[in-house]
């Protein structure tokens, strides 16, 4: 039944989006879609898949939900156009054509946008998108977030209630509204990817599934909005990051930094697609944060060995990103590139003003410690690494810093030995 699963999964965003426009209620749309899927599982194995699975699911789901309403109200007269929909094969083509028209784009965008409504905290946004758009089970989502199924069920129910209260308009959005929605949806997809990528616990295959789902949603969004260069950038960024997934953790689950990764484990197909999208986006000459981050990932992907990395190119891209989206984290990242081009001294001076804003940030102390270590200021490096460990989010992060401390210890032990033998 793998092919039916794939067909239902791929049709889901479009079908849910159309059912939501029709019923204007997330729960009704979901029930209608569920019912349509059940019927698909009964009928498709015998009759084969319909030519347009999404159109089939929309029609069957809509009719099933209407039947349900009618039964509740007892004998309501059939509206005329519904009576016509009894023969699926005839109407399928017509409906599929209507779906292809431009409002289908906005339907899917609305469905995605509803999930990342600004009233919702980000974890609820992601959970809701996974449930409603991607169709993951509550159990699967609960596992990804390391909470109980009951807690996740409650979280999703609460999110739906908030959305119903928020009243997202169903009219076709204007250009400005559409841009706002696109940006919000892109941010949500990015968060979803990071949830899978940042390895803040959880089983690895569950996290990989989140990354893959984010990529699928990004590609869907890009198919709908072909010339949005920031969506090209977002998709490229996710592809290039995910391409390194197999090299990022060692057999014990410890983080392997970019410099030490086995680059033969990088997925060349994902890299090729990511680079092709950056190439396409840059022709627009409208740089944005996703494109720039993708471009940085692209520079890394181009380097066959760590020493081949064009760090001055990365420094320059970060400089543009800093002006576009000034943030201490961007500056911290730029400092790493600066340390490779101009040395650790210059990089350390660059991150000094960040001590205040990044006082609670694990990576700040990790990077600071690494710069100090490069400069041979081992005592100060040790202090920074201890601060980093105190702020580590995962065991893997802490273990990584501890390996630096071990090196420092061996280093000073070696020096003491040298002194005593001298």
């Amino acid at each position, binding site marked *: 039944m793998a092919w039916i699963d*794939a067909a239902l999964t791929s049709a889901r965003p*479009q079908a849910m989006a159309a059912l939501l426009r029709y019923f204007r209620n997330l729960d009704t749309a979901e029930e209608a879609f569920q019912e349509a899927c059940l019927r698909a599982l009964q009928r498709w194995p015998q009759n084969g898949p319909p030519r347009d699975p999404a159109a089939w699911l929309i029609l069957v789901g809509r009719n099933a939900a209407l039947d349900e309403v009618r039964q509740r109200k007892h004998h309501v007269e059939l509206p005329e156009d519904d009576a016509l929909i009894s023969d699926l094969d005839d109407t399928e083509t017509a409906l599929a054509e209507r779906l292809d028209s431009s409002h289908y784009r906005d339907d899917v965008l609305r469905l995605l946008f509803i999930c990342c409504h600004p009233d919702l905290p980000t974890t609820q946004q992601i959970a809701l998108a996974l449930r409603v758009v991607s169709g993951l089970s509550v159990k699967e989502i609960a596992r990804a977030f390391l909470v109980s199924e009951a807690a996740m069920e409650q979280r999703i129910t609460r999110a739906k209630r908030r959305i119903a209260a928020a009243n997202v308009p169903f009219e076709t959005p204007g250009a400005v509204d559409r841009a706002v929605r696109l940006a919000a949806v892109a941010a949500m997809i990015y968060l979803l990817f990071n949830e899978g990528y940042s390895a803040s616990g959880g089983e690895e295959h569950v996290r990989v599934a989140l990354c893959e789902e984010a990529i699928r949603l990004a*590609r869907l969004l890009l198919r709908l909005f*072909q010339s949005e260069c920031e969506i090209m950038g977002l998709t490229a960024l996710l592809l290039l990051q995910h391409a390194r997934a197999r090299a990022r953790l060692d057999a014990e689950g410890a983080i392997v930094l970019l410099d030490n990764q086995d680059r033969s484990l990088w997925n060349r197909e994902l890299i*090729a697609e990511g680079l*092709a999208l950056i*190439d396409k986006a840059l022709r627009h000459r409208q740089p944005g944060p996703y494109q720039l981050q993708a471009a940085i990932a692209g520079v890394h992907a181009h380097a066959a060995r760590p020493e081949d990395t064009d760090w001055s190119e990365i420094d320059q891209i970060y400089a543009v990103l800093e002006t576009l989206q000034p943030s201490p984290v961007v500056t911290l990242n730029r400092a790493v590139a600066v340390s490779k081009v101009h040395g650790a001294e210059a990089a350390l001076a660059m991150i000094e003003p960040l001590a205040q804003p990044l006082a609670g940030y694990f990576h700040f102390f990790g990077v600071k410690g690494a710069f100090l270590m490069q400069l041979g200021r081992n005592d100060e490096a040790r202090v920074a690494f201890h601060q980093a460990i105190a702020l580590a989010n995962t065991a893997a992060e802490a273990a990584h810093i501890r390996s630096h401390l071990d090196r420092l210890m061996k280093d000073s032990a070696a020096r003491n030995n040298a002194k005593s033998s001298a």
Partner: protein
Amino acid sequence: MLYAILCYNSEALVGAWTKEQDDAVMAHHHGIEGKLAALGKLGPVVRLMPTTTATTLRDGHDTLVFDGPFAETKEQLLGFYVLDCASLDDAIEAARPLFVDGGALEIRPILYFNPGNPAK
């Protein structure tokens, strides 16, 4: 006679395949490629990247370049080139002279390429 066989399917569907399903499909194709190659029947085989990576040129007073695949149904697929280019810009410049009298050209990066070796 040389024949071209063009493969069509829903991209959303193919994108929903699991890694295992995708690998199985590719293994199926590679098996067929091997058999056809042994028979001297195999010419170039290509798997294209998704249409999201496509760029389309439209012939007109000035050549129009836009993002996305070729989507009109008034024209038919008449042929294709496979070019080795350093960048999308290079590919666009290489494609421009192909226009003779209208039509469109879709430029799509290639994901997998087997040059084949058809017998004469």
